[in-house]
């Protein structure tokens, strides 16, 4: 046998990735706690990837089946799930799709965030015991993570994958804001913490994947609030028939991973709105959402979104934070039809930045959508504003800046 030594890549997940040039810092262990929601997981994939490149050990805790397709192959995942909660969520899905405004807010806290926190608690505590993280990074919707970290005295950071909370959307409804804080307080009391914190905002580090260009004045926040801009760089997704794009201005219409068929009317209106425009439109929609689409409309149930945006001229979105920031990171103007939750807040941010136009969702009219789309495509002011936001994102540093800030916690 040859005595030649062969370097075999580590099978132990991302920690096996070679250390980058940034070797002044000792190897640390970072645990990301995430809900089973694509938009909340994606930014952690980019930040986790950056930390792994720097030689740190990275793991995730959450719903394993939901996480696996979103993380890089071989990423270390600790399961924190509860069959009863999962079944309840599945059953409530149809109901959730119909909720708007205050009813959606009540559902979010009473039926999702608080029960998810309880359901994840044992799994997160087990992950903390087994992985020995130096830092826990808690998604704003995973209440179990800050509680588990605080119970063991581990530094924890907030991962805010939407910037809506930083504009205090409930400031005009003090009783509702108080109601939310009570839910957060009760959760801590249930798990033996009576020194109550607002678990949405870590007192160590709050990573916000946006910038002042969208959020507005960020100088009012304490120094441990880091507005790092979007953390892009998740693995490339699905196939796309690139030859279909013929060089005309192209528009991506994406209404979020969860809304799918519930956005049926919107997709049909969008297809009709662009029928006689000199553009091409890619609709991310379930097969059959638009029967008999015009020839300038392509319906795909999945797209490689980041790569596709390189070929787009504008984006129509429901105001999901990731899609909005991914579009703006490319300097693309937006038309935003908010459905629920933080989306109206994000739509207002886009409008205030001058980078797009908000329209209705449920009762949107063909002309409303066509006029808004024509405006963002032809009026350079929207593109210029989108590029200003893009520049602020670049300056903020994204995943690298998030990793810098996380390293400083250890």
């Amino acid at each position, binding site marked *: 046998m040859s005595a030649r030594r062969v370097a075999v890549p580590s099978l132990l997940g991302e920690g096996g990735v070679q250390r980058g040039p940034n070797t002044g810092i000792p190897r640390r262990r970072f645990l990301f706690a995430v809900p089973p929601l694509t938009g909340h997981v994606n930014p952690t994939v980019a930040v986790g990837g950056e930390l792994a490149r720097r030689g740190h050990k990275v793991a995730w805790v959450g719903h394993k089946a939901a996480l696996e397709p979103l993380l890089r192959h071989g990423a270390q995942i600790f399961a924190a799930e509860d069959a009863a909660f999962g079944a309840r969520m599945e059953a409530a899905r149809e109901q959730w799709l119909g909720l708007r405004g*205050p009813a959606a807010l009540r559902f979010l806290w009473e039926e999702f965030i608080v029960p998810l926190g309880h359901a994840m608690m044992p799994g997160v505590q087990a992950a903390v015991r087994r992985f020995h993280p130096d830092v826990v990074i808690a998604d704003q919707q995973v209440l179990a993570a800050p509680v588990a970290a605080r119970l063991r005295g581990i530094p924890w950071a907030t991962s805010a994958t939407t910037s809506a909370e930083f504009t205090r959307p409930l400031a005009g409804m003090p*009783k509702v804001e108080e109601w939310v804080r009570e839910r957060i307080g009760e959760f801590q009391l249930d798990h033996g913490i009576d020194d109550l914190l607002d678990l949405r905002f870590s007192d160590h580090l709050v990573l916000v994947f946006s910038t002042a260009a969208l959020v507005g004045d960020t100088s009012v926040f304490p120094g441990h609030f880091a507005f790092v801009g979007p953390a892009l760089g998740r693995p490339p997704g699905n196939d796309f028939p690139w030859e279909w794009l013929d060089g005309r201005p192209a528009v991506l219409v994406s209404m979020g991973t969860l809304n799918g068929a519930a956005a049926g009317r919107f997709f049909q209106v969008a297809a009709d709105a662009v029928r006689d425009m000199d553009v091409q439109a890619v609709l991310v929609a379930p097969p059959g959402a638009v029967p008999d689409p015009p020839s300038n409309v392509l319906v795909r149930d999945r797209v490689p979104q980041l790569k596709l945006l390189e070929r787009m001229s504008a984006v129509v979105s429901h105001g999901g934070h990731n899609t909005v920031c991914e579009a703006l990171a490319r300097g693309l103007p937006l038309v935003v039809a908010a459905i629920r939750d933080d989306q109206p807040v994000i739509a207002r941010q886009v409008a205030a930045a001058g980078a797009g136009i*908000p329209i209705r969702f449920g*009762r949107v009219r063909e002309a409303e959508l066509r006029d808004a789309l024509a405006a963002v495509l032809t009026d350079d002011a929207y593109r210029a504003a989108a590029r200003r936001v893009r520049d602020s994102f670049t300056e903020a540093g994204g995943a690298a800046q998030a990793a810098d800030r996380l390293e400083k916690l250890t």
Partner: protein
Amino acid sequence: MTSADDGVLAEVVRMLVEVVGEDFLLDVQVGPDTTFNGDLALESIEFVALAEKLRARYGDRGDFAGLVAGMDLDQIMNMTVGDLTQHVEAAHA
């Protein structure tokens, strides 16, 4: 109801029809008991449009934000057209 009440109610209904669109209200008879969230499924952007019309017509009396500011989550979820017209009328008095 006094004629003044009818006036505010009729105004608010007219504004709602403008914001929402008459063709979307074919099955709904908008009255004092109509709920903004349940019956009309008013979207955030439509609330904003309605608030602008109220302010343009009634000035400070049409302060939608002032109405919502004192409400809890249940009250906001179940807020009716009648709640709004009473708010405008009370401010008028």
